[in-house]
């Protein structure tokens, strides 16, 4: 599971470097994000610009991260490709997550 991370202020931006976020990747994905959260409360911007395919288990994994977010911390999704955005809309999860077009917009949404 490839994730690129960078710190922006007190928050982190995690870029998923996989084209497919499916059943074979979700455990590693959840573990990787959990490691970042274990270091202390932090808000996360999840950059999905490289992900071209997501299935139900991928959605479930992102949902489980949302539920694990520490109090006062946020999870913002951004830069979804059309097929991924479509999955969020179909499932109404676009109404559950904060979703932004770009990483910059997502970062500013956090600092507001």
């Amino acid at each position, binding site marked *: 599971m490839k994730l690129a991370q960078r710190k922006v202020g007190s928050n982190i931006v995690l870029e998923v470097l996989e084209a497919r976020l499916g059943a074979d990747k979700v455990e590693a994905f959840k573990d990787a994000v959990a490691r970042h959260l274990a270091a202390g409360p932090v808000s996360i911007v999840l950059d999905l610009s490289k992900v071209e*395919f997501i299935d*139900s288990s991928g959605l*479930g994994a992102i949902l489980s991260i949302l539920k694990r977010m520490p109090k006062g911390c946020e999870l913002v999704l951004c830069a979804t490709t059309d097929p991924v955005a*479509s999955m969020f809309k*179909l*499932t*109404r999860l676009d109404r559950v997550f904060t979703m932004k077009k770009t990483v910059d917009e997502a970062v500013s949404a956090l600092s507001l």
Partner: protein
Amino acid sequence: MKAMILAAGKGTRVRPITHVLPKPMIPLVRKPVMEFLVEHLKAHGINKIMVNTSHLAPVIEEYFRDGDRFGVQMAYSFEGDLIGGQIEGKAIGSAGGMKKIQDFSGFFDETFVVLCGDALVDVDFAEVLRFHRERKSIATLVLRDVPPDDVSKYGVVQTDASGRIVRFQEKPARDQAVSSTINTGIYVFEPEIFQYIPSGVEFDIGGQLLPELVRNGQSIYGVTLPFAWLDIGSVPDYWEATSLLLRGKVAGFTMPGNEVRPGVHCGINVQIAWDRTHIEGPVYIGSSTSVGDGATIIGPTVIGSGCVIQPGAELRECILADYTRISSVAALEQKLIFGSKCIDPSGRYLDIEESQIRWLMDDARNKENLSESELLLFEEVKNLAVS
């Protein structure tokens, strides 16, 4: 009078719909596009219709059979082989398809009409035939002016003042096009054209036969006249055509079923509580479909027969094939559900199995259990996202 409907195309640009249905059988609201053509030909006294078939031939042949049900005589010229019990199409081009029939029986022994099976047209054939005969033409094309941006999708023609065609271009770039007048694929021919079509080889009308006629000094003509032309050559075209029909923009088209609410047409045996659903037309709801309480349906939308729209489901501008189940947590906007694919108007699609979203949409007859993780996600989404 005789006609030929070209129905042997593979429908590459309408995939994934054409994995299951050949293009002429794609329904516009409820009726296959080719059925509109057969009815239209009949209305003009054209009642002997040959159809060349190839890709998914049995779907066409078993629907129209000998044409009796439609008040015409129909027969088929199959292009392909049966290999290991499977039909394998081997189309030989539009002109090649005509030639095969002519070599078989000499069927085309008088002026005849040719049209593509993948566009709904209501062209006035009496007018086209009058034009054709007046000019003693061997081949007359029905033309149409399109916006300059669209020329690259079609065969472009240039005519002189008498309607004689002086130049052809196949799918030119916009800035190279000599006109924005295009060939609609509707033709009137004299049997003399067969001299210019070789036997047993792939041969195309637009790309080969017409230029060959011109090279041999034959005068061919084009007539431009107003008529409805709904091309379903690609997924976006299909989307547009369905939307125009539902919005009442196509003269002569009547919605099937009964109008039970303004703009809402229904088949029979529909299960729905009108006061507990939110429906905005134009909407067609097929027979034996159930719509659960709290569902939202916004038109233009077509719901097929035997569908199950579960309570609370949201549908905006959708086309659902027969036997589609939409779950209570799904929110579909501009989706075409067909052959286990969830298709965007652009033609891009999600495979329902591959994306594991049977908990959102499925074949209503599929009783296979959902996996534990799918059920879990369904419950979570229901709690989180459905108010």
